[in-house]
């Protein structure tokens, strides 16, 4: 038991470092499969954090949430993404609008911004700065991925990273919202992804490509 307590303590204090690493690798990855694997790893880290929080604070709800994250975000959603990519038969190369170097510099700027943004709130919430900056950085990264990637599938992934960030913010500050609400949020995300998958198929069928930067017929 001492080992578990020690491990959870270390997880809680250093998970944000690993999350920053996944952020940096996400913005430079050029293949869709790498991005999905990184998202899976990211969700696994967040699930470990939820598990550690449940252990430390003795909250059964956190355990349930951790299990849900593992089931849905670490296993189910990446499998669905791979299946979707296979069915859509798209090329695996991301057409990003920024080069990897620019992306990493932007990611570095975003990480710095997130630290700067949480400076004033860290004291009032009794949470170390890292644990607050990581969710904000995830949110910014998700937004950046949605904006800079041109493929519909990558926009969905960016949205998921954004939701990861918001979810992590809830976890570190308030140890999670009431369980019913968390489950409702999960369902919403799942159905949202289902709908986006349907739309991705429709886009591919009507436009013959998945490049959303070329969807510019409606303007003005």
């Amino acid at each position, binding site marked *: 038991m001492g080992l578990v307590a020690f491990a959870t303590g*270390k997880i809680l*204090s*250093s998970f*944000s*470092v*690993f999350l*920053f*690493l996944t952020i*940096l690798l996400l913005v*430079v990855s050029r293949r869709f499969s790498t991005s999905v694997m990184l998202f899976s790893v990211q969700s696994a880290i967040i699930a470990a954090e939820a598990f550690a929080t449940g252990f430390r604070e003795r909250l059964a709800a956190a355990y349930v949430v951790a299990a849900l994250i593992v089931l849905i975000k670490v296993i189910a959603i990446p499998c669905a993404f791979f299946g979707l990519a296979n069915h859509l038969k798209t090329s695996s190369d991301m057409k990003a609008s920024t*080069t*990897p*170097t620019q992306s*990493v*510099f932007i*990611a*570095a700027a975003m*990480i*710095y911004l997130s*630290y700067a943004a949480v400076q004033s709130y860290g004291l009032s919430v009794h949470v170390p*700065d*890292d644990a607050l900056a990581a969710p904000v950085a995830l949110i910014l990264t998700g937004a950046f991925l949605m904006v800079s990637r041109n493929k519909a599938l990558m926009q969905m992934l960016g949205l998921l990273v954004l939701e990861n960030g918001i979810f992590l913010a809830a976890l570190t500050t308030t140890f999670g919202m009431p369980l019913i609400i968390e489950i409702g949020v999960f369902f919403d995300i799942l159905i949202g992804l289902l709908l986006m998958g349907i739309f991705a198929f429709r886009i591919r069928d009507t436009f013959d490509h998945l490049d959303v930067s070329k969807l510019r017929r409606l303007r003005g």
Partner: protein
Amino acid sequence: MKTAINIIQALLLILGAPLVRGIVARCKAFLQRRQGASIFRPYSDLAKLFRKEDLLPPTASIVFRFVPFLLFGTTICVAAFVPLVQPSALLASRGDFFLFVYLLAMGRFFLSLGGFDGGSAFGGMGASREALISSLAEAPFLLSFVALAILASHADIAGIVSWTQQQNIFNISAVHMLAFTSLAMVVIAETGRMPVDNPTTHLELTMIHEGMVLEYSGPRLALIEWASAVKLHSMLALLVALFFPWGMASSLSVGGIFLALPLYGAKVSVLMVLLAVIESGMAKLRMYLVPDFLGVASAVSALAVIFTMLDKR
């Protein structure tokens, strides 16, 4: 006593370098489901080369003749900087990391000159590519060191290593993680490994390091090959020393030294296997993508420096 151990460290680095190369090649062969040559093959290669005749191109100047010796000399000096079994080395307290980086740069500079001087087209091509890569790799190399030095408040490698050794192994620091990523990418670029350069290629148009040494033969070629092996060993040992120095003997006890040696062996083996996995798993980057690769390394190391301001760990 300390000096003796430092000399033994340096000798280990220099003499063990071909073995490191052999082990990496054997791991790659294993991953690619080949038999592979024996791990002591580089030694027999060097011995063979020392016995062969030394031919010089008719157009070569004095630079061409002295480059191998200069390269070997600077690389030996670099090897003297790296601590193996204790947080000190021959030159580790005499010069700081700037000297380390620029000794390597000096060796590379002369190698490039020799490549031009050889008179072959591929030499010039390899030399110019090497110039691009090394100039881009300089920034992340220095910045990673700078990040570590800021944390340790020491600019010499021995100081950084002993500071790191005193930290708790489980406090994973963001700065170290970022600096390790960046430095690992630099090591790949500096030592001419995949995905930046293929050390086993025989297609001259894709050569970078090999292109520069095409015209050398005999003992001179042996010295150059040995120098590049020493460079690989030193940089791997540097990664181990800077980021995973626990296990080094901080006191001068013989028992501590004897314990630290196999521990070092284990750590550097892990790195060698990792290198083999990366080399086998990634395709060589096309030349115009190498600046992106090193740009990412620069950004990561810049972030490491920024992080030293953010969390004082």
